[in-house]
């Protein structure tokens, strides 16, 4: 019975380690999706000279998952509801999303529309591409550390489990 308990503790820690490393990988995938959103929006603004809400709306149709709904909601709110500024709506909706990305990265993305009102689409695009570049840098770092971090997370949790088992011996 004791051995069963011990193995359960170790198994749980191993699963937690795997889960955390999976979350780390998911964060990278999510960042890629956020970058893709920026790329789509830049394309719409650059080639079709779309307004930001239109670019958001079109992008919502190009991507999948939770972000698609969030983007659509943002566009609808800007286009058809009274009052709030684009920046406020974007921040509110993006802060409420459950998408998991590192906090600093999310902050960059949430603040992407802090500067709007450009008379030239190139300027708006360059603002978006600036954010894109910042995210790219972060992503590179995360990807470089990916293998080490995942291995570390898995082994740390496993060792943690063994440590708990030894403590309870």
């Amino acid at each position, binding site marked *: 019975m004791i051995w069963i308990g011990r193995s359960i503790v170790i198994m749980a820690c191993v699963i937690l380690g795997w889960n955390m490393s999976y979350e780390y990988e998911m964060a990278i995938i999510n960042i890629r999706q956020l970058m893709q959103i920026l790329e789509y929006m830049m394309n719409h603004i650059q080639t079709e000279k779309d307004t930001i*809400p*239109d670019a958001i709306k079109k992008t919502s149709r190009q991507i999948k998952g939770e972000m698609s709904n969030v983007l659509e909601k943002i566009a609808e709110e800007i*286009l*058809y509801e009274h*009052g709030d*500024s684009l920046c406020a709506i974007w921040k509110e909706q993006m802060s409420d999303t459950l998408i998991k990305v590192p906090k600093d990265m999310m902050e960059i993305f949430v603040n992407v529309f802090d500067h709007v*009102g*450009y008379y030239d689409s190139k*300027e708006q695009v360059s603002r978006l591409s600036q954010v894109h570049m910042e995210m790219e840098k972060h992503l590179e770092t995360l990807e470089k550390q990916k293998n080490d971090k995942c291995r570390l997370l898995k082994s740390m949790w496993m060792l943690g489990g063994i440590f708990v088992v030894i403590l309870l011996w």
Partner: protein
Amino acid sequence: MKKAEQIQILFPTHFQFLYDAVESVIDGLQEIRIRVNCPLIFVVQKNEYFIDVRGNITSDFQKAFIMKKADLESVFNHICQYSPYAYDNQICQGYFTVAGGHRIGVCGQVVLDSQTITLMKQICFINIRVSHEIRGIGDSLMPFLYQNGGFENTLIISPPGGGKTTLLRDLAKNISDGNRYAKGKQICIIDERSEVAGCYMGVPQNDVGMRTDVLDGCPKAIGMMMAIRAMGPEVIVVDELGLEKDFKALELASVCGIKILATAHGKGLEDILTDCNQNNEIERKVFERFIVLSWKKNMQGEKVQEWKIYDKQKKLIAEEERI
């Protein structure tokens, strides 16, 4: 979306006090004039009113809400959906159209590049012109615009603000949908200033009929040729003819057998006949019907619109007065 909502949505949250004012006067609201460091003005049935900080409509200038530059910028950005770049071509022409077909006129500092306006910056004056679509306004004119089931080339003449475009829109709808005098026809509207169909994102915001194609924002002369080549219309509709090249394109279209419905500025038929460019065209007998619109006061002192319809020989064939 209701018309009041279409106007309310143009103002950001901190102008919520205007929402009730807009709602209360929406039926007669013609313009909202916004100028930096000046009171906000509502033009309702040709009368001016101010709005106080609580959103009440007042005639007292002292109580009026004064627009600051930051306020105006926030309104402008909000109207442009935070994307003025998307409207740069229209802004250079001084106006753009928003959802509902309402026109936003803007004034500011113009940047020129070899006599061409490349940018308008420091926008400090905005005029929101509320679109008024009056359906059925041209119904009584229809019998005079057809002969043997065929539509006659028609020119609507009136001074600015005389209701040319409103009438043109309704006539276009009538011709397109069909009426008791003729079947519906394929129409192409060359809407250079987005006034007739009031397109927003390419979609007409006004009802211009089910057989109507709209070439939005396109110069009239080029547009007419494009329409003939691409869309094969039976009737071409153009607003505010003026340039010689417009008339040349018009002549070409009429030679191709396409019927024309157009408007031109003028006080009366005489104005058109004495105008050098337009006179040429009329001499070529493109137009077969002339509708002259004018405003006058009736016996009761009410402002009425007078319509006179002339035929090819400039003979009066019908006239009507409307309050």
